[in-house]
């Protein structure tokens, strides 16, 4: 086990403990400790990050990544669902910023359009209508908090282990982790890299795009079917009695009392 793993393994475990304490539970105790543990874990991991690029780029990366991680933690640990949604929006903006920092312009704006601009707004819409202030028990408890913390540990552990082995290789046989100039020129630094992305998506990956489109269409039809399923599509001759008895204020002509 090399030196960086010696730091990262305890950091990840500490972070998992912190997140588990932070997740909404019946009691409020341990939240401060959880926050401190998560912050310490973040600092430990940040101390082992390799330097890629200049000071400006690295500083920007730290700021955006920090905002993303902190708002992701807030999104899962707060009790008011509306706050969670707002912090999740912040996470998405941070992710878009990270994409932009890597030169993936289209991915960045697509993240904002699709997730922040459409999906999350719909979430927010429903949350505000359903249970505005998060008083319901099911909103204030996190289901399977321990399991999700463990799953997070496993995921981050695998990722850090693979990055650690890459760094070990790097130390053994020095080569640059950054892509070469030629790779960059053909990829993200290409003047028309959106066109290149489109060619890639609608060339080799055409089937995947088509399948995705069909899946979305099926979901759309399903949603329409669920909405329409509740009431008859044509006015039937014998309507439900409850409908008839309702007083209607909007009728233009007074109904003669029976």
């Amino acid at each position, binding site marked *: 086990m090399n030196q960086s793993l010696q730091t990262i393994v305890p950091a990840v475990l500490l972070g998992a403990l912190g997140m588990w304490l932070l997740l909404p539970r019946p009691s409020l105790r341990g939240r401060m400790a959880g926050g401190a543990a998560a912050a310490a874990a973040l600092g430990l991991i940040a101390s082992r990050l390799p330097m890629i690029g200049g000071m*400006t780029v690295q500083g920007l990366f730290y700021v955006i990544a920090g905002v993303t991680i902190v708002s992701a933690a807030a999104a899962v640990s707060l009790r008011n669902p*509306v*706050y969670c949604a*707002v912090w999740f*929006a912040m996470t998405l903006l941070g992710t878009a910023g990270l994409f932009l920092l890597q030169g993936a*312009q*289209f991915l960045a*704006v*697509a993240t*904002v*359009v699709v997730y*922040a*601009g*459409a999906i999350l*707004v*719909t979430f*927010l*819409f429903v949350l*505000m*209508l359903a249970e*505005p202030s998060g008083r319901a028990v099911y909103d204030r408890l996190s289901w399977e908090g321990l399991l999700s913390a463990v799953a997070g540990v496993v995921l981050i552990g695998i990722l850090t282990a693979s990055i650690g082995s890459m760094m070990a290789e790097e130390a053994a046989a020095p080569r640059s982790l950054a892509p070469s100039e030629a790779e960059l020129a053909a990829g993200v630094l290409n*003047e*028309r*890299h*959106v*066109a290149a992305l489109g060619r890639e998506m609608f060339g080799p990956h055409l089937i995947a795009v088509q399948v995705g489109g069909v899946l979305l269409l099926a979901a759309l039809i399903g949603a329409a079917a669920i909405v329409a399923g509740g009431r008859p599509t044509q*006015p*039937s*001759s014998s*309507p*439900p009695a409850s*409908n*008839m008895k*309702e007083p*209607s204020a*909007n*009728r233009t*002509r007074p*109904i*003669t009392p029976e």
Partner: protein
Amino acid sequence: MSMWILLEALIKIFVIIGGLMTAAAYLVLLERRVAAWIQDRRGPNRVGIPLTNIRIFGLGQPIADGVKFIFKEEFIPGHVNRWLYVLAPSAMFVAAIVLFAAVPFGAVDLGIEGWEPIALVVMPGLDVGIVYIFAVGSIAVYGVVLGSWASNNKYAFFGGMRSAAQLISYEIPLGLGILGVVLASGSLRLDEIVQSQAETGVWNVFTQPLGFLVFLVAAFAEAGRLPFDLAETEQELVGGYHTEYSGIKLMMFLVAEYLHMVAASFLIVLLFFGGWHFWGLTGSEPVAGIGVALLRVVVLLAKFMLVVLFFMVARWSWPRFRFDQLMSLAWKVMLPLGLVNLVGLAFWIEYGRPRFSGANEWIVMAIGGWVLLVASWLVTTLLVPAASDNRPRLGPAAADLDTKEAASP
């Protein structure tokens, strides 16, 4: 080198923000004067130089309004959610300003040795220009939704709900209108979209009238201008989502709304009216000398002003939609029309365009576009009833019931 890039970007940002704030203030004055003209009133014409009696056509009014907004008490009502109440106007304001980072005014070659031509846009080389504007524009709905919810007021909440539904619905026709232009120009970059119109001399509005119509209606709805201002209907909802706001936070909401209209006008000019291009006046090279570049900026701003005037006159020309009419206009009329435009254009580019060359290509394309517009207009007007009934459905059609009752006594 990177210092200079930073300096250049900072100068552009200062010019854009300063220009936008001034423009927003004085466009409000212009709008009030236009409204007064339409309604046969005088409008705000009194405020001039302070402590004197000199009125300069009311040009002091925006400054007085701004000073009043800024010096008002910073009041937060006791029943609101403080964090979101403060966050909402800031988010909307920032999103409305950041949007202008991708609006191009052309490119200028200053003619100094060793200087690259300067692109008159804050973010030059952004390959996804129009999608970026679309993305930042879609953030604006957060300001409305969060502000209305945080206000803890049912009128504000109604306004927010209406506005959120409206903004999400009209993003789709807006996107379809943009897609038509992107398909015709072959680029997502706004400067290249303008360039392609300048090189051929044929603005997109001539070849894609249907796409223009869809985009125009959707842009009105996204900007929340009058036929579509259901979010803040004064007669029904007091002030809509900003009912509980005052002082500088209210000003941020109002300015952000105004900037949405400004952005919509710029997009209409850039996408459909050739941006800085005008026949026989501005040339069509991508980079111009300083004189021509200035002329191009003037042409762009003149077109922009015409579109803004159209927005202002339209405000007093149509009554407000009912909400169900608004929704059926988006989903049952504008969405199909946008799709018709897109599919027709795709067919033309794949099968029609290779058969023609030179001026014939544009003439046939324009004729096709207008035929498409008239045909789909006729189909829409024949299929959609002129008036719709939003009374509650009572099992058998309410009209049936009424005729039975009329016959029975």
